[in-house]
């Protein structure tokens, strides 16, 4: 790796916003930030933003048990193309790190990645919410984030005990509040559209009820919680109240939940089938009014084999890919200054993931150069077939976005140049 100079960009990080050059040393660390720097190979980034790299708290990358939906390589190609320098690989069936060796296996294959992968464990065996997994043993591998699926229908005993037991290890529990207790067959938001289409609905309150219950348990136990993919204003209000009462809680929103509304489902195209479901335009407006209460934008990147998404709507699995559209959807659809969008994409999630020493944060000499360079004004139209993810079905198909990543640097290495992933890791046969 030779010295590299990013010249003429606008640097935005946690400490603010300034016009400056960034010099990166051959060791991959930031050497200097300032005006009129010289040296190294020069990259002209005039008119572009240089940001601390993005961090996604909610990504499914496949794993040893599932190489068909996504691979570590294809998933992290997708990540770096979207400007991410670190992603959290969540536990999701069938890739569930619920013991020390499965966590170690996942960490092992994560070495093939184009960006940093933080492996999340599963707080319960088989991710079933019934039996606590060996949190201490798994966290011995450095795992500090644990997917904890919602409370089991049988009650909250296990949930409470996980919240209590986990604290010794400095664990943050990740909860997705999409329990199906009110809607066993629910496949979209409950309301006028679901009634018209005859699709079983998922009521908004199902999320709020679960968020309320878990927030109260967090207050009771003192556990550290992160709520994934919050999609209703009521949930945000409940979380804000619990936070103000001292709960250690953070929450994320996914770009599709503030960009796309349920009316798209009238096409019966399963690309719009996500969980939590797309909400109404009115609900999206209410959530956007509360956007500064969020701690992160996370994609919930959920690739699957394309043909599964080409089934009938109610038969197809939930989820959409999202790594390559997050920045564009955020700038296009959030009425926020760039530094606030970057807080949600970069330094705030870096803190939640426990990697603020190397990602996000303040860009200062001596830190690893995990950087994203993007054009905030570039308008482009999303096409699934152009994406690096193995899955080419995206909820953002044909939707116009604003803001496009041109370069991504991971530990000082240019892994994306002019929007093209540089595959130096010896990309194998992807198929």
């Amino acid at each position, binding site marked *: 790796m030779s010295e590299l100079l990013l010249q003429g960009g606008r640097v935005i990080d946690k400490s603010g916003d300034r016009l400056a050059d960034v010099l990166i040393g051959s060791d991959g660390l930031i050497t200097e930030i300032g005006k009129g720097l010289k040296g190294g190979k020069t990259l002209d980034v005039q008119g572009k933003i240089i940001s601390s790299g993005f961090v996604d708290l909610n990504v499914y990358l496949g794993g040893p048990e599932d190489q068909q939906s996504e691979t570590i390589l294809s998933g992290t190609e997708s990540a770096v193309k979207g400007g991410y320098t670190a992603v959290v690989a969540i536990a999701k069936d069938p890739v569930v790190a619920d013991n020390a060796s499965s966590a170690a296996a996942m960490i092992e294959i994560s070495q093939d990645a184009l960006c940093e992968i933080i492996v999340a464990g599963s707080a319960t065996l088989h991710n079933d919410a019934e039996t606590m997994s060996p949190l201490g043993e798994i966290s011995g591998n450095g795992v500090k984030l644990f997917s904890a699926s919602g409370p089991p229908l049988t009650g909250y005993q296990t949930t409470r005990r996980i919240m209590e037991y986990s604290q010794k290890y400095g664990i943050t529990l990740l909860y997705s509040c999409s329990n199906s207790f009110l809607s066993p067959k629910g496949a979209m938001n*409950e*309301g006028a559209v679901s009634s018209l*289409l*005859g*699709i079983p609905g998922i009521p908004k309150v199902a999320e709020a009820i679960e968020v309320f219950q878990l927030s109260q348990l967090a207050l009771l136990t003192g556990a550290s919680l992160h709520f994934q993919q919050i999609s209703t204003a009521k949930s945000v209000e409940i979380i804000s109240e619990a936070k103000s009462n001292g709960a250690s809680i953070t929450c994320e929103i996914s770009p599709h939940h503030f960009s796309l509304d349920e009316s798209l489902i009238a096409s019966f195209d399963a690309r719009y089938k996500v969980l939590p479901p797309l909400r109404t335009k009115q609900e999206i407006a209410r959530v956007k009014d509360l956007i500064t209460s969020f701690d992160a934008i996370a994609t919930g990147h959920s690739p699957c084999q394309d*043909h599964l998404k080409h*089934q*009938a*709507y109610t038969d197809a699995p939930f989820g959409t890919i999202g790594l390559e559209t997050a920045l564009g959807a955020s700038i296009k659809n959030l009425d926020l200054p760039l530094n606030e969008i970057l807080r949600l994409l970069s330094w705030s999630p870096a803190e939640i993931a426990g990697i603020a020493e190397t990602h996000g944060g303040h860009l200062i000499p001596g830190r690893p150069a995990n950087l994203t360079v993007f054009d905030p004004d570039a308008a482009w139209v999303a096409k699934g077939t152009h994406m690096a993810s193995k899955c080419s079905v995206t909820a953002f198909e044909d939707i116009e976005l604003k803001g496009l990543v041109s370069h991504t640097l991971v530990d000082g290495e240019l892994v994306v140049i002019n929007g093209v992933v540089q595959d130096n890791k010896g990309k194998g046969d992807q198929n």
Partner: protein
Amino acid sequence: MTQKHIRSIDDLGQSGIEEILALSDHFHEVSTRRIPKVPALRGKTIALLFYEDSTRTRLSFETAAKRLSADSLNFSIGSSSVKKGESLRDTVETISAMGVDAIVVRHGSVGVPWLLPSWTGAAVINAGDGSHEHPTQALLDCYTIRNHLGELNGKKISIVGDIKHSRVARSNIKAFLALGASVTLVAPKTLMPFNTDDWGVDTTDQFDSVIEDSDVLYMLRMQLERQQSSYVPSLREYANEYGLSDIRTQNMKPKSLIMHPGPMNRGVEVSSNVKEHPKSVINNQVANGVIIRMSALYYLLGSGSETKFESFDDE
């Protein structure tokens, strides 16, 4: 010209419905002939793709196709590669490659008829998609009502029962409203769609409040498994509250109709001899099913113009 489909009553609108009802008068005449068959769709091929068992609807379409001299191909779930796990898309592309002009599809999942046009150039008829729509049922119901009451305009139609899960109700509401009728939905709140604010209908959970005023009582089939999921406490209580009993039929106004899309649960949504009641037109509905499906197929695949009715002549 873009391919026409009948996936929803919305694909037809008022003018499309009227056109099919007008065609049906001609095909009704055909059905009274000694040989009830015309060469109107000779050379056309119609695929019947049924992912759900439905002997009645499938036979009705098959008979309609035969009476129009079209060839029909039958793909039923039990007897085809569908059972072997072939995807919907692959099945449709395979059928399409055989050269079909129309695909009649029934599927347990909503929206399947909307997916087909991206895989085939054939015209699509929805023979029922999940809880969503069943437009040819609505057409035959409109035809039956018109034949008995003259017109739908200004008539009061009450649809009674499990509206929430009913594709028949969703199509009928649209068709009845398009032809000028007013519609009241009658169901316990558990079986009423969550939100009907924009539907242009009245709703009530009091069956007895609508009986005297209704020109049509349209009784829906009650799925027997609904009581296991606590939609209703018991079928007995449902029958008491929402069943069309003999006493309730006595309160109906003169010249009013009893309808049911079948198959019936005698003793649940209708008392055991309601089908034979003088106001019942349930048998007419079945007979009209073949005629309406002839019209629907001709509407999509025929010349589409009434000036070509010579082709209805006997061979």
